[in-house]
């Protein structure tokens, strides 16, 4: 085949792009590890296909799940993506820690090129394909239920967002088996990621994966904001929403405003790389400082996009497991919104060392510390929520308590980093790495795990087993401290981040402790999966069909577990905050409706999967310069979207009789269930019906 035809068909793709071929050519340990990772992707895909075929799951996979517009299923699919990506990125983290612990004055096991890809994919995945999908999934699942809505404002757009995120995640996974990923870190600073220094496909994979998910996230933000503003049930005033909805609102506003700078940064970088523009090049008037500003104009609000929904989860969890009203609701709302606004005023602290004047640095340093005030207020509000409560140490609650304690330490180092002269001596060192893991692991990861465990019974109708949950919790906490506290010390000792090898023997003991911690964190993830597997096997023991296993307070617990497709047989009317709690207190929960009506729900749609697939094809074609694939993918997306606008039969009606039958069947289960006190919450007796305990004092 002549070169022209090859290029026309496959662009710059060739055999060298396959890690197996590279490992064959250069049989080093590093290449073998790369080939093994690529092999795992291939084998994983083959096994998945075989399993789906063997179990005849293709039809249900597509017809019940991938084409579904049900916000609950979309939420669950987001969490599945997050789980898969978390697994990969955590293994990468362990590999990096192993490398550094071995590579003190020694070559270690992975080559510099490989190591650079590891930290780049680890960061990119953890931020964009683990934390973001996880929290988007939780918001998707819980928020419409909490505000008494049947779905989000734009169910089809929701599916498109999911599939765009999946497409981005898919590109990152494909890069493991075909070609290589960027070595420019998760922030992809040019000019290093420019064509002059990185002519290969790595940064292109990064650019298009990020662009796809960034678009998806913008749409999610838009969707959530419109849902919260416009789809609340009657009486659900903003100040009556559960705090999780407030944080979801704030996060979605941040998504709407903060994702465009990222989209623009990656788009302009792509113009530099593909069309010889000069935005961020060294020569001809390019200015990489523009990229840095754009990136962090996104990047800092992003931190709060990640952390605020987790704050919402903690607010729900701590209140539920303290059997108590959330302390300082108004303060928490104000603090949340204050954080949202302040998050746009501090981006410069990511590059205090760029040579600005002391006035500018000091102003941004003080702005950064100001965020500590609303954050501190929140922490105290959670503490005072436990005050005079009845605290139960279930796994989500344990995560919340560990969060408060650990997060405060992260805040401590955060304030240190906000002081420019101190930043000068720890910036770009592992002190910084320790800091942001110290805020994001307890702040986001513990939060999304707590949220997953808290809402799991609602989503699937059975509780997760507590024993394995607690083992997992112990691993996540112990592992965290062992893995990251040494990095503070090493960072103060001047150890730079992203270093494949080290030459200072004094670093070694601390690196060994850190790698131990990394393995314990991996054990935390493994036990999390064990917990899931055991829970599925023992699901009959742990069923909670009535739907209120934790004696919680907001509307999502007022319906069956799992909830019907339409969420509520009749749209609730709300008279106050914590409405379900007060209904239970007044024995007004679990009542049949006066009369049932037909309910219209959106039909399943193939638009989302096709847009996702088209987007991924477009991205892959761009990465490898396979232009026919790019054009085909792009056309597929737009033809589908325009074609969809000509479809009028987009909804189906669930008859009133069917709704009534389902509702009455559930109410029969409720009256057959035995209400249990909180002491029996973790026993198989918990059928999801809570005993009013103790009798609430009339307010």
């Amino acid at each position, binding site marked *: 085949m002549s070169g022209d035809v090859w290029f026309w068909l496959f662009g710059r793709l060739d055999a060298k792009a396959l890690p197996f071929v590279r490992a064959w050519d250069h049989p080093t340990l590093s290449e073998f590890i790369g080939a093994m990772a690529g092999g795992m992707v291939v084998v994983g895909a083959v096994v998945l296909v075989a399993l789906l075929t063997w179990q005849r799951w293709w039809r249900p996979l597509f017809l019940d799940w991938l084409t579904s517009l049900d916000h609950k299923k979309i939420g669950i699919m987001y969490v599945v993506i997050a789980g898969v990506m978390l697994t990969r990125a955590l293994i990468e983290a362990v590999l990096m820690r192993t490398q550094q612990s071995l590579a003190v004055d020694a070559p270690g096991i992975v080559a*510099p*090129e490989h190591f*650079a890809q590891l930290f780049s994919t680890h960061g990119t995945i953890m931020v964009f394909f683990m934390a973001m999908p996880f929290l988007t999934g939780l918001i998707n699942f819980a928020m419409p239920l909490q505000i008494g809505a049947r779905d989000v404002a734009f169910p089809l757009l929701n599916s498109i967002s999911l599939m765009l995120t999946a497409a981005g995640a898919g590109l990152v996974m494909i890069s493991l088996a075909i070609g290589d990923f960027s*070595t420019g870190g998760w922030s992809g*600073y*040019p*000019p*290093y990621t420019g064509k002059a*220094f990185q002519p290969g496909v790595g940064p292109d994979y990064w650019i298009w994966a990020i662009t796809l998910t960034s678009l998806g996230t913008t749409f999610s933000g838009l969707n959530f904001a419109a849902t919260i503003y416009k789809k609340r049930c009657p009486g659900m005033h903003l100040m009556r929403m559960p705090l999780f909805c407030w944080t979801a609102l704030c996060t979605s506003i941040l998504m709407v405003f903060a994702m465009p700078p990222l989209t623009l940064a990656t788009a302009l970088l792509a113009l530099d790389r593909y069309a010889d523009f000069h935005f961020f090049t*060294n020569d*001809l*008037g*390019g*200015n990489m*400082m523009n990229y840095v500003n754009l990136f962090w104009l996104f990047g800092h609000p992003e931190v709060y996009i990640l952390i605020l929904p987790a704050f919402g989860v903690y607010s729900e969890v701590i209140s539920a497991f303290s059997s*108590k*009203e959330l302390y300082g609701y108004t303060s928490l709302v104000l603090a949340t919104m204050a954080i949202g606004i302040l998050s746009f005023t501090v981006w410069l602290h990511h*590059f205090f*060392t*760029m*040579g600005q004047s*002391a006035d500018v*640095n*000091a102003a941004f*340093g*003080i702005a950064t*510390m100001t965020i*500590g005030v609303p954050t*501190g*207020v929140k922490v*105290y*509000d959670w503490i*005072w*929520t436990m005050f005079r*409560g*009845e*605290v139960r*140490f279930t796994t989500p609650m344990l995560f919340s308590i560990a969060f408060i*304690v650990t997060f*405060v330490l992260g*805040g*401590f180092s955060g*304030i240190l980093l906000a*002081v420019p*002269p101190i930043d*000068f*001596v720890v*910036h*770009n*060192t592992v002190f910084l790495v320790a800091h942001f893991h110290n805020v994001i692991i307890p702040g986001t990861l513990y939060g999304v795990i707590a949220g997953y465990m808290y809402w799991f019974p609602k989503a699937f109708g059975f509780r997760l087993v507590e024993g394995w949950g607690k083992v997992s919790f112990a691993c996540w906490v112990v592992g965290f401290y062992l893995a990251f506290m040494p990095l503070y010390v090493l*960072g103060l*000792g*001047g150890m*730079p*981040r992203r270093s494949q*090898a080290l030459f200072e023997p*004094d670093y070694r003991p601390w690196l060994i402790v850190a790698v131990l911690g990394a393995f314990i964190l991996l054990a935390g993830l493994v036990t999390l999966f064990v917990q899931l597997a055991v829970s599925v096997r023992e699901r009959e023991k742990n069923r909670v069909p009535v739907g209120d296993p934790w004696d919680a307070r907001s509307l999502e617990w007022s319906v069956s577990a799992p909830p019907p497709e339409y969420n509520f047989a009749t749209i609730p009317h709300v008279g106050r905050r914590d409405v379900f709690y007060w209904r239970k207190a007044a024995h007004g929960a679990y009542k049949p409706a006066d009369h049932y009506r037909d309910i219209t729900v959106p039909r399943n749609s193939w638009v989302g999967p096709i847009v996702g697939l088209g987007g991924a094809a477009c991205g892959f074609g761009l990465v490898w310069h396979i232009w026919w694939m790019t054009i085909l993918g792009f056309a597929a997306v737009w033809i589908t979207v325009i074609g969809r606008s000509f479809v009028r039969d987009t909804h189906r009606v669930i008859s009133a009789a069917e709704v009534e039958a389902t509702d009455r069947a559930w109410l029969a289960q409720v009256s057959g269930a035995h209400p249990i006190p*909180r002491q029996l919450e973790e026993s198989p007796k918990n059928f999801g019906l809570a005993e009013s305990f*103790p009798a609430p*004092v009339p307010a």
Partner: protein
Amino acid sequence: MMPEVTDGDSAVAPPLVQGRTRHRTRRARVLSAAVLLSLGGCGVLDHGMLGAAGPVADQTRSLFVIVCLILLFVVGPVLLLTPIFAWHYRLSNTKSAYRPQWGFNWPLEGLIWIPPIVIVLILAVFLWRGTHQLDPYKPLASAYPPVEVQVVALDWKWLFIYPDEGIASVNELAFPADRPVHLNLTSGTVMQSFFIPKLAGQIYAMAGMTTQLNLAASEPGHFTGQNTQFNGMGFQNQKFPVLAQAGDDYRAWIARARAGGKMLDMAAYKALSARSVQAEPSRYGAVAPDLFKSILALDDAGAHTAHKEAKR
């Protein structure tokens, strides 16, 4: 405050750190010794700012300790109250009070909002003062004029040009311990970050632009400098020895460089700037005039005068 300019003779040993700051420095040293001990007195911390070997790192350490002490007031109550409340109000404790509808209290709100605000205000004062005092562009107070060094970040090595001496070195920064050093930095490649942990904070070096850094050593010694901004496959090797020397040693160092005789002109620079890791330092006995300016002009950032030809 402008340093008093003498005729540049560095043979006379001047006092190193100004008397005004000496008292504070000693206090900070005691405090930081306590911090060091609490962390196990391990050698690792000695490689960073806590093992300060120059006035800038020293003052940074004082600021670090002060901020840490203030922050104890923030962290302490949380670390205490969280476990206490969680344990005391546990479900199995039937003696603890239970007020499920208690969710607001004005005095408590004050207690929650006001102390953090006050602490941030206090910290803000320290931050403002510290940031101005330790501005990397601010010349260090000294009886002697600073040694001028032009720094070019390359893949994966550092070029140091001494414009006053007309010499240059690669991967070795030498200066007299009794004089401050004033660095003008740029990059001949991607962005890098220049950092000598024991002497001063870091600053970015970017192509087509200059940044500045002032540093000094308290006494003669050998330190390690490094790039901390990832810039490719030789990144981990991009370290260089920093030699703060007694005046005579420094002059001998210059003489050795001159004797080497190699000339650094644009052609030599182009050869040098190819991507490579250089294990051993090398020196140039002569440097083409205005080479630093020519290197800057290679990557013309056009309008970005704010950073070009630093005028501050």
